[in-house]
C-alpha cells in the first residue's frame, strides 16, 4: 500500500476514509506530517507496545528495537506476543502483528542492542520512545537526539507507577487552538532541558506551593540510580541495598532521609521489574498523545515530566530543573 505522498496537497481516498475520524481532529496537513514520520520504539516494553499500537493506528511508521527475548511475564502486557514467542527475540516476534494494525504505516524490527547501534542510526527517526534503558544510555541517546533535532521520550512503567520524561530540544515551538473557529495561535516557543540537566536538578528544588517533589519521581530516579550502580533494575530481594541507595540519593538531593520510608523502597523493589497492563495502557495513551501533539505542532506538550500514580489514578506534570524565578 502506498504511504502518503508528502508532495501532494490531499490524502488519497484510502487514507481519507481510514483516517476520517482523526483528520476531523487535527486536519489534513497534520495527518500528512504524521504519515511521513518515523518513530523508533527502543526497548519494546509493555508501555512501548501500547504507544506503538496508538501511533501505528494513526498512520505513523514504526521501527521496534529490542535485543531481548520475550518472557512469559511479557505476555501479560504486550498484546503482540503469544506463548509461541517466548524465548524468541521480542522485536522480531511483534513486528508482523503490529504491522497488521495498519498497512499504510510501515513497521520494521531491529534486533541489535542499543550499545551495538551506532550514533548515526538514531538520526533517521522523527522521534524516539525509549523504555527500559539505563540512565547512561538515556543520556547518550539524548545527546544524539538534541544534535539531530529528534524528539526523545523516556518512558518507564513499573508496578502501579508511570514515568515519562520528554526532551523535544532547545528550539521547540507549538501552536494553541484559540477557541471555536478562531484558528491557531502564533508559534509559542518552549525550550526543553536535556535529560542530564533534568535528572541532575536537586530534588529539594523541585517543590512547589502544594508540597515537595512527587514521590513517583523520586522512586523512578532511585530505580535508575540503582541500575547505574548495580547493572540491573532492583528485584524483590534487594530491599536492603535499595535502602542504602535511597539514603545516599536523598542526602545528595537535599531531602530528609525519611522522605522515602523503608517499606516504600521495599514496594519499589517488588514493583520495579513488573509492568501491569492498565498502567502501560494509560502511559502508552499519554505518550501517544504527546507524540501526536509534537508531530502536528498543535497543543501544549508536557513540559517536561509526566508522572502517573495508578493507585489513585492521578497524573501530574512537573518541570525539572524548575523554572528560573
Amino acid at each position, binding site marked *: 500500500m502506498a504511504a502518503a505522498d508528502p508532495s501532494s496537497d490531499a490524502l488519497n481516498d484510502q487514507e481519507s*476514509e*481510514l*483516517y*476520517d*475520524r*482523526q*483528520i*476531523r*481532529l487535527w486536519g489534513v496537513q497534520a495527518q500528512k506530517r504524521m504519515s511521513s514520520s518515523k518513530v523508533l520504539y527502543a526497548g519494546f516494553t509493555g508501555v512501548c507496545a501500547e504507544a506503538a*499500537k*496508538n*501511533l501505528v*493506528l*494513526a498512520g505513523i511508521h514504526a521501527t521496534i528495537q529490542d535485543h531481548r527475548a520475550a518472557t512469559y511475564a511479557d*505476555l*501479560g*502486557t504486550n*498484546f503482540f506476543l*503469544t506463548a509461541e514467542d517466548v524465548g524468541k527475540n521480542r522485536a522480531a516476534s511483534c513486528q508482523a502483528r503490529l504491522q497488521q494494525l*495498519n498497512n499504510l504505516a510501515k513497521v520494521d524490527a531491529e534486533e541489535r542492542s542499543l550499545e551495538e547501534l551506532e550514533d548515526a542510526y538514531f538520526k533517521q527517526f522523527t522521534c524516539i520512545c525509549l523504555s527500559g534503558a539505563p540512565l547512561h544510555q538515556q543520556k547518550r541517546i539524548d545527546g544524539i537526539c538534541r544534535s539531530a533535532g529528534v524528539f526523545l521520550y523516556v518512558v518507564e512503567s513499573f*508496578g*502501579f507507577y508511570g514515568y515519562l520524561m520528554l526532551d523535544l530540544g532547545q528550539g521547540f515551538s507549538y501552536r494553541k*487552538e484559540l477557541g471555536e*473557529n478562531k484558528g491557531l495561535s502564533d508559534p509559542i516557543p518552549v525550550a526543553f532541558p536535556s535529560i542530564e540537566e533534568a535528572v541532575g536538578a536537586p530534588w529539594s528544588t523541585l517543590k512547589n506551593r502544594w508540597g515537595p517533589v512527587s514521590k513517583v519521581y523520586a522512586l523512578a530516579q532511585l530505580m535508575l540510580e540503582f541500575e547505574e550502580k548495580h547493572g540491573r533494575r532492583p528485584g*524483590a530481594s534487594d530491599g536492603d541495598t535499595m535502602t542504602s541507595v535511597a539514603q545516599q540519593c536523598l542526602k545528595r538531593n537535599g531531602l530528609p532521609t525519611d522522605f522515602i*520510608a523503608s*517499606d516504600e523502597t*521495599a*514496594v519499589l523493589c*517488588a*514493583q520495579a521489574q*513488573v509492568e*501491569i*497492563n*492498565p*498502567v*502501560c*495502557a*494509560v502511559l*502508552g*495513551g*499519554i505518550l*501517544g*498523545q504527546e507524540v*501526536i*501533539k509534537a508531530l502536528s505542532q498543535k*497543543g*501544549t506538550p*508536557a*513540559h517536561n515530566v*509526566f508522572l*502517573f500514580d*495508578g*493507585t*489513585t*489514578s*492521578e*497524573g*501530574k*506534570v512537573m518541570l525539572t530543573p524548575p523554572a528560573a524565578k
Partner: protein
Amino acid sequence: MDRLLLRSSPFGAETGALPIGEFEPGEEASARAWDALMGEDCKILVIGAGGLGCELLKDLALSGCRDITVIDVDTIDLSNLNRQFLFRMKDVGRPKAVVAAEFIEKRVPGCKVAAHHAKIQDFDGEFYSQFSVVVSGLDNVEARRWMNSMLCSLAEIDDDGNVIDPDTIIPFVDGGTEGFKGHARVILPRHTSCFECSLDLFPPQRVFPMCTIADTPRLPEHCISYAHLLQWPQAFPDKKLDKDDPEHMKWIHERAQERAEQHQIPDVTYMLTVGVVKNVIPAVASTNAVVSAACALEVVKLVTYAGHVLNTYLMYNGVTGVYGSTMALERRADCVVCGAPRRTFRVPAATTLRAFIADHLGGAALKIRKPSVTHPSRVLFMQAPPALRAQTEPNLDLPLSELCADGDELTVTDPAWGQGTALGAVIKFS
C-alpha cells in the same frame, strides 16, 4: 501480576475513601486476589465494543479476567479501523461484539468472551445481576442513564433506603471520550453519586436554533443543517435521507454550498457535511487508550481490593497537556434513581396533565422526555403502544383535579430509566 499483589501496600489495610473492602498483602492475599480476578465468581460485563470497548477487552483479558461478556449493537465500519484495533479490513460489516470476542479468545487462551449483538435494553435485571462489575464504553448519555437506573435498582434496599445485601451492589465503571477529551468514573450504586445525580454535568447537545438556520446563517454548519432539515424534506417528501448514501450526501453538500455562497460563508466541505448530518464525533486511539485503561485499572482494584479506588470522577484533556483532575462527585439526596424516588409537586388544581408533564417532568428538573403517568386506579397517559396512547391522549387536556385527588401519588416512568426506576409523584393542589 503476582509480584504486584505480593507487595505490602503503602496504604496498609485500607482501600481509600470508597467502601470496597480490605486488602492485606502477602502470599495468601495475592493468591486470593489472583483467584478473585481469574475465578468463576468474577464475571465482568463490558458494554460497547468500539473505541473504548476494544481497549477495555484487551486490558481486562491481559489483566487476568477469564469470564467477560460484551454487548454492542453496531457493525464494523471502515472509519472504525483507526482505533478499534481488534477489527481488520475483512471484518467490515460484521457485528463488533462478535468479532471482538473472537479476537480476544484467540489471543488470550483461557479467557472466555460471550458476545451479544444487541441493545442493552434487550436484557433484564436477572441478566445484569449475574455480573461482579459492569464497565461501559458507550457513546451516548441515554444508554448510560438506562444502565445506571438498572444497576441502582438491583441494589436491595429497605424502606429507609439502606442497603440490605452488599452483594447486590454492582459497581459501574463508566468511560467516555470525544476527540482529545475524556472521563472515567466509578459509581457504587446507593453509595456514591450515580449517573442521574450528575446529569447537570453534561452540556446540552449542540443543536442550532431553527431561526438561525432559516434566516440568519453564519457558520457552514447552519447551511448544512438547512439543506438537511429543510430543503431535503421539501424536495423529497417521500424519500428518507440515507446518511450513508454518497448520492444523498452529495445533494446535501451541493445545496449547502449554494446557500453558503449566497451568504458568503466559506468552508462548506463534503467532510463537514457528513460530520454535521451524521453527528460524527472525532476519535483517535490515544484518548481511548488512556480512558479505557483508567477504567480497567479501577475494575482490577474493585475486584482485588489492591489499591485505592478512584473517588469518583477523572477528567482527561489531551490538548492542554494536563492529565486531569480527579474529584469526588456528590450524591444528590433528591436523585430519583438512587436517593428519593418520591417527590411532592404543588400545582394549581386546574393545571392540565399536558402542562404538568411539560413543566414539571420534562425540562431542567428531571430531564425525562417521554414520561408515562399512571394513577393507582387507572392509566392516565401512556406513550406506547399506539392503541393505548390514542386511548389516553384525551386525558392530557384534562385538569389534574379531574384525574386524581389532592395528595394522591402518581407513578411516572420513562424509557430513560427503563424498568429500574419509577418516580412517585405526590400531587398537592395549591
